[in-house]
Structure formats: C-alpha cells, structure tokens
C-alpha cells in the first residue's frame, strides 16, 4: 500500500488540525483548564498540548540542571588540592581529577581505562593499591593507607589515601572512589618536630645542670634529668614518686616553701635561691636553684622548670675560707697576747724558781712550788704551740736525736688518751740523728696521736709508735717522689681504728679537709704535719684500709754530726762571779725578777725600765757592766736598736736579747744588731744562767 501524496490530502489535514485545535480549545473551556489528559475509549491517555508543553519545559529544565551540576562537580573535583578519582571493578580509572592528572602528566582521556600498572606505578606499589581496591569491592569498607610515590617528573611525595565504596541501588558496590592527600609537608614538619624533640630531650638529659619539671601546686616531679638524679643520689623512678619539697633540707623548708608559694600565685615569673637538698644517703647537697613558671592555661602557672646547679664545692670552699679567716684571726690574737702572757709566765716561773732556792724546812712547800713550776712550764709550752700553729714561730732546726723527743711526746699522749687505747712503742736507739725542730716533731706526733685516738674512739684499740733507721733504696725513692736514696730516721704512727677510704685518703693532707663534724676538727692537723715534714726535707706517707686502721710514716733524712744538746736541765746552773749585769725591761716585775735571779746566780745585777737610761748608764761608764740583758719589745726603743747603739759605745760588750717570739729575728739581723745571745721568754733560771754564762764566756775563736 502506498501512502497517498501529501498534497492530495492537504485540505483535509488542514481541516482536521483546525478541528483538533477547536476540540482542545473547547475541552479547556469546559474543564476550566483544570484537566491535563483526556482518554479516548481505547484507554490511552492523551496529553493536552498545554500539558505537553509543561512536561517538555520541565524536562528541559531538569536536563539543564543536571548538566550544570555535572559541570560544577567536575570543576569542584578538579579544584580540590587533594586527588579525587574513581575505579571500576577491574581497578581501572574511570575518572581522575585535574591535580592527579597533572601529577601523572596525562589528560583525562588518556588516563581513563588504565590501571596502576598501565600508569607506570612501581610494580609492588601497583599491586598493593590494586589489591586494596579489590578489597573495598569485596568487603564494602573503606581502606586508608599511606605511601610514597615518585612521579614521572621525578617529584617524590608522601601521600595519604582513602578508597571508599560507592553503593549501587541493590546494595552492591558499583565503583570505588578514592581521595588522596599530599602529606609531604606534614611529614616533613613531623619529622622536624621529632628531631627537635630529640634534641631537646638530649639537651635536657645531658645538661651539666640538674633540670626538672614539677607540678606548680604540689611540686611533684614530672620530669627530671639524669644529672639531677645523680646530684640527689636517687633513681629516676624513685624521684617520680617524690616532690621537691620532700627532698628539701628541713632548715631550708620554710624559705623554700615561701619562694614556691609566691611563684605559684603569680608573683613573678622566676626566682633564684640557694638551698640544700638531702641526698638519699642523708648527706647535704647545696644547690643554686633557678625556678621559672610555665603557663599552659589559666592565670596561675601549671608547671615550674627547676634548674639546679651543684654548688656544694663552692659552699665548701666558702666554709673553708671562713674557717681559714677564723684561724687567721685566732693566730693574730694569739700572737698579740703571747707577749703579755709570756711576761706573766716569766714572772711566775722566775719567782717560783727563786722561791725554790730559799732553803725550807717544810717539804710540802717545796713540793707545791715544784708543782707550780711544772704547771707554768706546761702553760709556757702551750703558748709555744699556739705560736707554732699561728705560724708566728720560726722552726729552730738543729741536729737532734729523735728518740728522747718521741719518748717525751709518747708520755704526753699517754697521759691524755684513755687507757682503753693500748700503746705499743718501739724506739730504736740507733736511729740516725736528724736536723729537726723538736717542738715541731712533738707537734706532729701530738697531731697524729690525737687522730689515731679519734679513729679508735668508743672502742679499744692499739696505737703503735715506732722509731727506726731505714734505708731508702732507688726503687723506694722512685715511688715516693719526696724521698731520695739514703738513710732516714722513720717514725711510724699506726692505729687499729676505722681506717679511711680511697677518697678520704686522697685528700687527707688537704688543708681544711676534715671528716670530723664542723666545730670539732679544723682540718689543719695533717696539713700542718705535711707542711712541717716539707720544711724538714722529709716526707710523710699514709697507708690505710677501711676497718683495719691507718699507718703514717714520717721520714727525716739522716744528718750526721755531733749532737749539741743544751746542757741537761737538771744539771747545775753555771754561776757568776760577781760580774756586773745591766737588765733593761719596761716591765718592772720582770726586771726585778731578772735582777733577783741573777743575784741568786752570783751576779751583781742592776736594772732600768727605760732603754734611753740604759744607754746613758753605759755611755757614762762603758766598762762598768760586763753584760747587758735587754727585752726586745719596749716603748721608745726596741732591744735590737738599743743593742746596736750600745755596740757603738763599746763594740765588744756582750748583749743578750730576750723575746717572746723569734719571728723576723733572723740570725743575720741579730748579728747586725750585735746580739750575742737570744733568750726565749719565759726564761727559766736555768736558761738565764746558762745564757749569761755563755755570753760572758764565748768559746775561743779559732
């Protein structure tokens, strides 16, 4: 069947269209425009043209909206700095946003449909990513991971990505969407932060000062470095259970608490304080603290940073300096009073001796006078000790046998040390003679003996004092730098006391180093021993074992020669034969004493209190006096000045100088002043007698 040519039906078509239009118009009219469709009897609804228009408009609007939204989405995805992309089930890219395409250096068309292998990812990375995509499809859960990736352009970055399932209508996974963020920068700063933290940790841990972070209100230790732990003598774990307040020395607690209170309530941001902590072993740690406040939130500081510097050493030095200054002051004081005190002693001794020369029927009075004499002599000895200690007395080294000196010291030690300490002495009579100051040897032995006793205090023990001859050979000299090969007289003082550890032993001769409580020991005893041995060209060595005891060896170099002991004390005093003697002393009591003593010794003595008068008397009659005995310290003119003036008048006149202390009076100066003899105050009848006798009868010059 062939369709009739359109032209043939043109008129009919036009008529039908007119009818159609008329029908629709009439329907709209009848329904008031409220109807959209009409149905014919066959049931197929027929849209009125107005409704058709509406539908078409709506579809067009929807299409426009959809395409606009799609464009917007694409733009959005490509404007992200993160990568956004879509995979299909085979792991091929269905979409990749512009940043990702830029990384690859590809267009979207070139990338779509390729998987990681085809995109040139390293095989192991491609495999891993592919498997993760599959996992999302299968498990319907997100996968998050990180990776490094080097682009074709050679840029290596660190990336964090997440693959998420996109669900279809039936709940299965239609495709997988991914987003990736470049965390290279974050990684770098995290790394930098970690490095910086490690550095700070190292700074904190290895600092040469103690550093701790404490809670501002409780002062509980939150962090503390190794150095601080070491300073406090406690472990890190132990300290984290403690507060700084608990470690503070009780005497500093109040001051300390107040300083911490102030900073806690915001008075100031930091403070410095010198205080003491107690170490675990109970010993004291002196520190210089600097405490600064740290705020994390709120008005009051949350944490305090405590920096502690160990100043124990400095404190000790300060205390030693203090002690030294005290000693210095005592020395000056002692020197100052020595003159007066000696004069008093001279009078006591002198008159006692005079009294003893008067025959008495009463044996008791003789006994008492002897006791007075003994006591005064001891007092005089004491003054000498004080002077030695304050270094105001020059050592008088002469050739001596050590045996009687040591014996005398032992006797004195024995009388002062309780009998719970047993003495064992062994003094070789063949020990060589040495060049020594007996007073100082005496002092050394007293010091060592007292130390030994202290080491054995509160228990029984044995002190051994030994004098022997010893020959130092090359090997011995090699290990003791102060010793040379040759003969020595060696005094050993040993005890069975507590002994010393290596640390104490190392410092034992250090001045002011003492193991005794403050106030009980000066720390000078062994230092003095060391100093004395030095001036004697000798040496002192020490051996000790904790719990076993200690032994000190004193080495005096042997010095051959004939010992010229002053004539025995108890021997007869040389007497005078009516020689006229002039006594010059500003102290009338002593001047008279001298006069009387000389009178008792068979001299004719006169005295004057003024040096100027003495000068006049000699000038008036130069030959009148056989000898002048003068005090050194007098107002107006010293004894030495007087002596040189007298010598100008009569050059051969024997002059004896009496002095309390031999300081600054060197033999040269004495010679220059024309002093024949020196008498130490307080002079005994014996020393006075022998002195005067010797000055009047000098040994014949060769």
């Amino acid at each position, binding site marked *: 069947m062939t369709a009739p040519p359109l032209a043939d039906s043109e008129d009919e078509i036009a008529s039908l269209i007119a009818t159609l239009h008329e029908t629709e118009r009439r329907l709209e009219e009848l329904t008031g425009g*409220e*109807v959209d*469709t009409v*149905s014919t009897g066959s*049931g197929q609804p027929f849209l009125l043209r107005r*409704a058709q228009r509406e539908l078409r408009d*709506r*579809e067009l609007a929807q299409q426009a909206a959809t395409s606009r939204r799609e464009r917007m989405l694409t733009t959005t995805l490509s404007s992200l700095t993160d990568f956004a992309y879509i995979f299909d089930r085979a792991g091929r890219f269905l979409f990749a946003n512009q940043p990702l395409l830029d990384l690859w250096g590809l267009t979207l068309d070139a990338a779509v449909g390729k998987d990681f292998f085809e995109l040139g990812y390293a095989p192991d990375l491609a495999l891993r990513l592919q498997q993760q995509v599959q996992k999302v499809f299968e498990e319907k859960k997100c996968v998050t991971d990180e990776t490094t990736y080097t682009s074709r352009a050679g840029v290596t970055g660190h990336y964090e990505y997440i693959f998420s399932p996109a669900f279809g209508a039936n709940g299965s996974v239609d495709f997988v969407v991914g987003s990736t963020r470049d965390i290279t920068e974050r990684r770098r700063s995290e790394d930098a932060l970690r490095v910086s933290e490690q550095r700070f940790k190292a700074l904190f841990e290895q600092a040469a000062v103690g550093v701790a972070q404490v809670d501002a209100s409780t002062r509980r230790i939150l962090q503390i470095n190794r150095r601080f732990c070491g300073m406090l003598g406690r472990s890190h774990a132990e300290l984290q259970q403690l507060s700084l307040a608990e470690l503070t020395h009780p005497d500093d607690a109040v001051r300390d608490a107040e300083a911490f209170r102030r900073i806690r309530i915001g008075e100031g941001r930091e403070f410095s304080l010198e205080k003491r902590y107690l170490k675990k072993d109970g010993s004291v740690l002196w520190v210089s603290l600097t405490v600064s406040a740290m705020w994390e939130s709120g008005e009051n500081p949350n944490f305090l940073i405590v920096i502690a510097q160990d100043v124990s050493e400095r404190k000790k030095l300060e205390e030693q300096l203090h002690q030294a200054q005290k000693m210095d002051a005592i020395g000056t004081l002692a020197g100052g009073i020595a003159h007066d005190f000696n004069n008093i002693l001279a009078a006591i001794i002198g008159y006692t001796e005079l009294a003893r020369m008067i025959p008495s029927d009463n044996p008791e009075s003789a006994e008492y006078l002897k006791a007075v004499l003994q006591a005064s002599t001891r007092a005089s000895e004491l003054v000498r000790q004080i002077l030695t200690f304050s270094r105001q007395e020059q050592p008088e080294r002469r050739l001596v046998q050590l045996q009687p000196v040591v014996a005398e010291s032992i006797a004195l030690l024995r009388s002062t040390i309780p009998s719970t300490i047993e003495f064992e002495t062994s003094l070789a009579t063949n020990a060589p003679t040495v060049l020594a100051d007996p007073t100082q040897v005496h002092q050394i032995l007293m010091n060592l003996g007292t130390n030994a006793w202290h080491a054995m205090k509160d228990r029984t023990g044995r002190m051994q004092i030994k004098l022997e001859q010893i020959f130092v050979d090359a090997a011995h000299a090699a290990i003791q730098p102060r010793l040379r090969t040759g003969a020595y007289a060696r005094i050993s003082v040993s005890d069975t006391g507590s002994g010393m550890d290596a640390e104490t032993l190392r410092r034992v001769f250090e001045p002011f180093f003492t193991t005794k409580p403050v106030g009980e020991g000066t720390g000078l005893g062994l230092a003095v021993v060391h100093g004395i041995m030095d001036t004697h060209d000798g040496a002192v060595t020490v051996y000790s074992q904790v719990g076993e005891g200690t032994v000190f060896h004193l080495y005096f170099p042997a010095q051959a020669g004939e010992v010229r002991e002053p004539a025995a004390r108890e021997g007869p005093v040389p007497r005078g034969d009516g020689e006229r003697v002039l006594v010059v002393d500003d102290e009338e009591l002593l001047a008279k004493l001298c006069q009387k003593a000389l009178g008792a010794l068979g001299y004719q003595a006169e005295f004057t209190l003024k040096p100027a008068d003495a000068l006049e008397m000699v000038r008036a009659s130069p030959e009148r006096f056989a000898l002048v005995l003068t005090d050194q310290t007098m107002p107006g003119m010293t004894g030495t000045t007087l002596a040189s003036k007298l010598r100008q008048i009569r050059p051969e006149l024997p002059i004896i100088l009496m002095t309390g202390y031999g300081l600054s009076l060197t033999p040269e100066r004495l010679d220059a002043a024309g002093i024949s003899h020196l008498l130490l105050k307080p002079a005994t009848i014996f020393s006075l007698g022998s002195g005067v006798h010797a000055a009047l009868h000098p040994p014949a010059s060769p």
Partner: protein
Amino acid sequence: VLYVAQGTQNSALAVANLSALCREQLPSRHEIEVVDVFKEPARALANRIFMTPTLIQVSPAPVRRVVGTLSQPGRVLALESNAA
C-alpha cells in the same frame, strides 16, 4: 484514588490540594493513592478515567468522583459528607 498525569501542573496542583485538605480536615482518617495514567493506563481505563486529574472516592461507598485541581475544598468535602 487520585488519577494524574505525572509532570503536569494541574495534576501536581491536585495532589497538593488533596494532601493539604486531608491533612487539615481528616487527620489520620485518610488514605490517598496517586496513579499515573501513563504508567497504568489499563487501571485508568477500568475506572473509566477519561480526564486527569480525577479523584475517585473508593471508600466509603458509594464510589464518587471529582475532576480538576481540587482547588475548591467544598466540593471535595461535600463528597466526604455524603460518604458520612
């Protein structure tokens, strides 16, 4: 049952009007079914729908119908009261 032609203005108006009316006047006492005549032409034919929108009140009996956008509540309510 409201018979409509999906996407046209009058049908949309009818749905909106009926929903509003029922919500106001017959809260929790109504049930509306919307049928697209293009999707279910057979059902429309069976119910002799030859125009949309057409509202057919199925229950309670007797069955009645209103054609148009239902913009005059009175006509719909009258239908309702008849039913009552």
